[in-house]
């Protein structure tokens, strides 16, 4: 990069945190690193989900195949092909979204609305046109803005940069901690989504994936992506590297589990409930759903735990004792899900 361009960029981009995306480098995988044909709606990397309706099977995994400067990517591997998509069928990699309160500075729905630029690295043997899209709910409907990009060279990491129009018409229609901007990376799209011409700006047109390749058409196909950055302005700046711990903490606002055991111990009276208070690792986006897994117990049955209340900061689990005396205990792990 020339000095002049670098200085120009520094003068034209906001200081401080630039990337609106959490886990754009695909480093955080709290739910696992490999998923065999995950169901539609499954989170396959923190903040990233697969959504689909088609007759193919695709395995997803965190890969160490990554461009210079990155440690990981997200990999899709077609294991059963679908060469003939029905009209409405599709396959999407879906970023679960920013919170509305984290994108209020975009001034959407006003004359001061700001453009956004998304950059990312992709690699695939399946070359051709793909689609990347921003979307959000405006209080009445979901509005989208799609852009085409091309994978030019087979099996070669390529950086893509797409600038999206400012939305001066629609404002975010959900609560402050509700879903704001989301991203769709289209991998395949039936004819319903491929009308011509492609919708050129924000709207509700179905022409969202015009000319998109059918990535699902061969079991030889693989797709890799990493380094996703969404930032204010018309310039794609260098990827904003955050420490792993920082990125993990951001992800834990939406999902995390306890690695250490949560333990209640003490004097128990048979037939009475005993409560254990657990704090979450961070304040969560919303009151989370909880799974509780009993690991061991003394003076308690091996049946499941209960919880009676939770907040964004913690919960308590309880269990009725089956024996009276000191030294009784139960211990468990939990997962908390407040994903968008």
């Amino acid at each position, binding site marked *: 990069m020339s000095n002049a361009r670098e200085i120009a960029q520094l003068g034209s981009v906001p200081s401080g945190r630039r990337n609106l995306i959490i886990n754009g480098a695909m480093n955080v995988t709290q739910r696992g690193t490999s998923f065999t044909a995950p*169901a539609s709606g499954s989170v396959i990397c923190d903040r990233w989900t697969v959504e689909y309706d088609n007759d193919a099977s695709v395995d997803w995994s965190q890969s160490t195949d990554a461009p210079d400067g990155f440690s990981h990517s997200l990999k899709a591997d077609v294991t059963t092909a679908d060469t003939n998509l029905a009209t409405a069928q599709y396959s999407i990699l879906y970023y679960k979204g920013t919170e509305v309160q984290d994108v209020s500075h975009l001034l959407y729905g006003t004359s001061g609305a700001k453009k956004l630029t998304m950059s990312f690295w992709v690699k695939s043997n399946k070359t051709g046109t793909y689609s990347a899209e921003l979307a959000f709910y405006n209080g009445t409907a979901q509005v989208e803005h799609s852009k085409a990009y091309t994978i030019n060279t087979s099996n070669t990491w390529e950086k893509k940069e797409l600038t999206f129009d400012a939305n001066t018409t629609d404002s975010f229609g959900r609560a402050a901690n509700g879903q704001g901007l989301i991203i769709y990376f289209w991998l395949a799209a039936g004819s319903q989504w491929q009308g011509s011409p492609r919708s050129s700006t924000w709207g509700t047109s179905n022409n969202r994936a015009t000319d998109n390749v059918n990535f699902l058409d061969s079991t030889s196909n693989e797709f890799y992506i990493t380094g996703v950055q969404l930032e204010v302005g018309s310039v794609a700046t260098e990827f904003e590297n955050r420490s792993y711990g920082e990125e993990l903490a951001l992800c834990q606002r939406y999902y995390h589990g306890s690695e250490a055991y949560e333990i209640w111990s003490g004097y128990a009276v048979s037939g009475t409930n005993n409560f254990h208070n657990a704090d979450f690792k961070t304040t969560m986006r919303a009151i989370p*759903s*909880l799974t*509780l897994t009993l690991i061991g117990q003394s003076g308690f049955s091996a049946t499941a735990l*209960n919880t*009676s*209340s939770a907040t964004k900061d913690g919960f308590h689990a309880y269990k009725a004792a089956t024996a009276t005396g000191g030294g009784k205990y139960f211990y468990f792990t939990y997962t908390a899900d407040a994903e968008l």
Partner: protein
Amino acid sequence: MNEIDIISAQYVSFEGTNSCVKAVINGAEWFVPIDPANRHYAEIMRQVEAGTLVIAEAD
């Protein structure tokens, strides 16, 4: 384009008040708060309103 498979749902009562919903979601048992900002609860209520899911009373 957001799929959550809910097999069953039942209120959990604590001291006479429904405190949360115990639901089997995508094959796992979850305690779901009664909070519309929670995506599982929002989906449960969407399915209840669509007539495709009934939340059983607490035991």
